């Protein structure tokens, strides 16, 4: 019996993922082929093997999409799915690392959130059944400008490794003032110092050292081509970050970017991808006075590649990313760019565009079939596949719903499973 179970588990793993032929879909590839009507997608061994009309594959389960939209699995944003269960309960949150109180300047870029990832988190199916199949696990600023490292994790609920390389997270601007002695100017001073240490330009054991030996090694990787997310909002700060990154040979990704539209030309010139929250249109802080509802559209028009994410409640309510894309489109972003902003752009930004983010031959078959426009708020995902495997369209929330949807039986609800 135990052996049978083991075999069943192995069979359900990605290496033995199901094959499936999805027929007659409106395929939004989020890639160079754009949208393909009446098109079939063939998945074998969990990988997309063919895309085209009238495909056939004997013995492969076939699903009739009836012309409905098929998209790549969506990007759930930068957040802490699997790193936190209940935001306000510290015992369930592992997304930041804090040194002792009153420590200013010290950085632990070697802190990596990935080992804390909980594949059994209820947040995973809740996001996935809304069409979200990958997320950027983020290291939030704890007591350091460099929050640490995260990575791209697929939301299949398995104890898989992340895909792609580690990402470094840095916080800049007024939200990080407390981490830099109350001035944002000191952020560059401190990062300069850390970089000198990482490059071996400072003695190892001087008194004000910011990095541990492991931290030097870790940071050095991000000076040699690793990707660094800079969370930054104000136009002048974005310019500073771009210049700083260029000077140090870093590969920046801008996240936040409330005022990014003001420095679109510079972003374009430096070929930097920007993630904005398309619902951010208020001067929520003095770093965001220039917030505009058409930020994403203005950036795209200027030739900047735009990704979309949700800045608030980004873990439990990651599903709101889809709404940000719809709003960006409503305010001028072309629809195809809106879809790309939550599929191929994030995949490319984090260096996993060869695995996820598009419907293309050779990529992982993380796919979503929708009952209507995938960027609309009044539609939903009918079926999600990961590695070609149909994922259960249930979550703790749908189970709670079902318990209370049904008529009372005379026994307490606790007896209703």
């Amino acid at each position: 019996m135990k052996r049978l179970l083991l075999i069943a588990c192995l069979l359900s793993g990605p290496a033995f993922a199901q094959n499936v032929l999805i027929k007659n879909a409106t395929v939004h590839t989020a890639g160079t082929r754009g949208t393909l009507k009446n098109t079939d997608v063939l998945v074998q061994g969990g990988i997309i093997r063919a895309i085209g009309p009238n495909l056939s594959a004997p013995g492969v389960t076939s699903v009739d999409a009836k012309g409905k939209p098929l998209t790549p699995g969506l990007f759930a944003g930068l957040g802490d799915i699997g790193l936190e269960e209940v935001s306000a309960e510290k015992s369930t949150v592992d997304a930041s690392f804090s040194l002792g109180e009153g420590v200013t300047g010290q950085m632990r870029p070697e802190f990596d959130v990935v080992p804390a990832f909980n594949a059994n988190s209820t947040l995973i199916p809740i996001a996935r059944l809304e069409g979200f199949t990958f997320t950027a696990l983020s290291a939030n600023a704890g007591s350091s400008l460099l929050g640490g490292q995260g990575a791209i994790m697929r939301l299949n609920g398995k104890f898989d490794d992340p895909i792609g390389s580690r990402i470094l997270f840095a916080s800049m601007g007024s939200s990080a003032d407390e981490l830099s002695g109350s001035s944002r100017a000191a952020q560059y001073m401190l990062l300069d110092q850390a970089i000198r240490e990482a490059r071996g330009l400072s003695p190892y054991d001087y008194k004000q050292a910011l990095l541990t030996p492991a931290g030097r090694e870790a940071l050095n990787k991000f000076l040699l081509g690793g990707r660094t997310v800079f969370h930054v909002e104000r136009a002048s700060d974005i310019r500073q970050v771009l210049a700083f990154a260029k000077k140090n040979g870093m590969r920046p990704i801008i996240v936040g970017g409330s005022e990014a539209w003001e420095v679109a030309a510079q972003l374009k010139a430096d070929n930097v991808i920007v993630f904005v929250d398309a619902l951010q249109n208020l001067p929520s802080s003095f770093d965001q006075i220039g917030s505009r509802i058409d930020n994403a559209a203005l950036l795209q028009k200027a030739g900047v590649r735009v990704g979309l994410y949700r800045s608030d409640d980004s873990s439990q309510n990651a599903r709101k990313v889809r709404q940000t894309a719809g709003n960006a489109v409503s305010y001028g972003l072309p629809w195809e760019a809106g879809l790309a902003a939550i599929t191929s752009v994030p995949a490319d930004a984090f260096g996993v565009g060869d695995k996820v983010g598009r419907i293309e031959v050779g990529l992982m078959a993380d796919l979503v079939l929708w009952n209507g426009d995938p960027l609309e708020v009044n539609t939903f995902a009918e079926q999600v596949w990961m590695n070609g495997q149909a994922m259960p369209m249930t979550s703790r929330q749908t189970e709670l719903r079902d318990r209370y949807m049904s008529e009372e039986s005379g026994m307490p609800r606790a007896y209703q499973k």
Partner: protein
Amino acid sequence: MRKSCLIAAMAMLSFSVAVAGKSSKSDNPEQTASVATNPYPSTYQRIGSAPVMIRNATVLTGTGERIDNADVLMRDGKIAGVGKNLDAPDNATLIDGTGKWVTPGIIDDHSHLGVYPSPGVSAHEDGNELTNPTTPNVWAEHSIWPQDPGFAKALAGGVTSMLVLPGSGNLIGGRGVVVKNVYGNSYQSMKFPGAPHSLKMACGENPKRVYGSKGSSPSTRMGNVAGYRSAFIDARGYMKSWDKYNAGGKEKGDEPTQDLRLETLAAVMRGDIKVQIHCYRADEMMLMMDLAKEFNFKISSFHHAVEAYKIAQPLADNGICASMWADWWGFKMEALDGIQENIALVDRKKNSCAIVHSDSAEGIQRLNQEAAKVIARSSALGMNGSPENAMRWLSLNPAKAIGIDNVTGSLEQGKNADVVLWNGTPFSVYAKAEKVYIDGALMFDINNKNLQPVSDFMIGQGVSP
């Protein structure tokens, strides 16, 4: 990311004031000459306007009806007619509504605009008087910064009135006020004439966290309940002494001294102030219903109410509204059981009162989109997902909860002409409010920059709206 902001906000999240069911008489229950009955009166004046006739639109009345190819006539600040082929007065401005939809103005019964304005700087944190767990003496209106840029954004989202509440850090957070979404240099000029005050109370985690962390009471849920009860017991004595005094006769004695805390709670027990309770969990809502019985007051609405679906029937039986989000959940323990069908499951009961609320400067701009999410879920499960039904969650039901349904909240003859013209169905991510009328005056026009208000704060910042 940004979790710290979220949690900080959470401490202040909910507050609400509600007047339940009973008709509201005055802002202040006391009748005596030496006690002011309405010391901060509304000075709101509607903007004058020629009659407006919107022709041939799809009309959602807010009462649950939909009329296709219908006209809406506004005159002298009121709805003068809703129906097919209405006659327009000669001087009426004619608007072609072909292909467009018309709804009542959206009403948010849970907003902190003005009291937690943008930008969110420390100098503007005026929504929670966290110096005592029971502060029925404070009034949110005295904290409103009328220059909050958020009012303009909410207007662009079709919001014409809102209840501005104190936060949820206290057991009893103070009075909330209904305002019209029209900029002015004082809150009095925004104050909704004749609207009752609401009292904001809070269940659960917030008060016990705020005070427990200071080492004072309440630090537990039982401490919370003891706190409400003590406050109402004090107020009961106060109410009796005034009743005795007001009854006159030999026994009346000296005029009791006015007490701002007890005055508010006495007004709640007299039914002059609506009660809005921040409460997430089903068990706590049931408990608060008993508290209301103990002190003979009526609860108008439970706010946030993420577990309202578990007690939809008792809510309907007791005539209590639930003001809910479409999908927020899980940021704290009491929000753990949130489901996306909450609003739909509350709504499906007879005599229910489901409301989509925001509690957010972002959410208030897109309440139509929040309702659209619920429509998708309702339809998928075979419940009523019609737009005409959903419109009630955004207009008439919140109007009821905050005591202004006699004058607004639906497109019915004689009511205030608070009207939104949409570019299509409102229940879409692509929907836009094209024109927003408040008391018959065009206060926002998406195609006319001169009719897009800008707060003083945004002047000279170099940002176009």
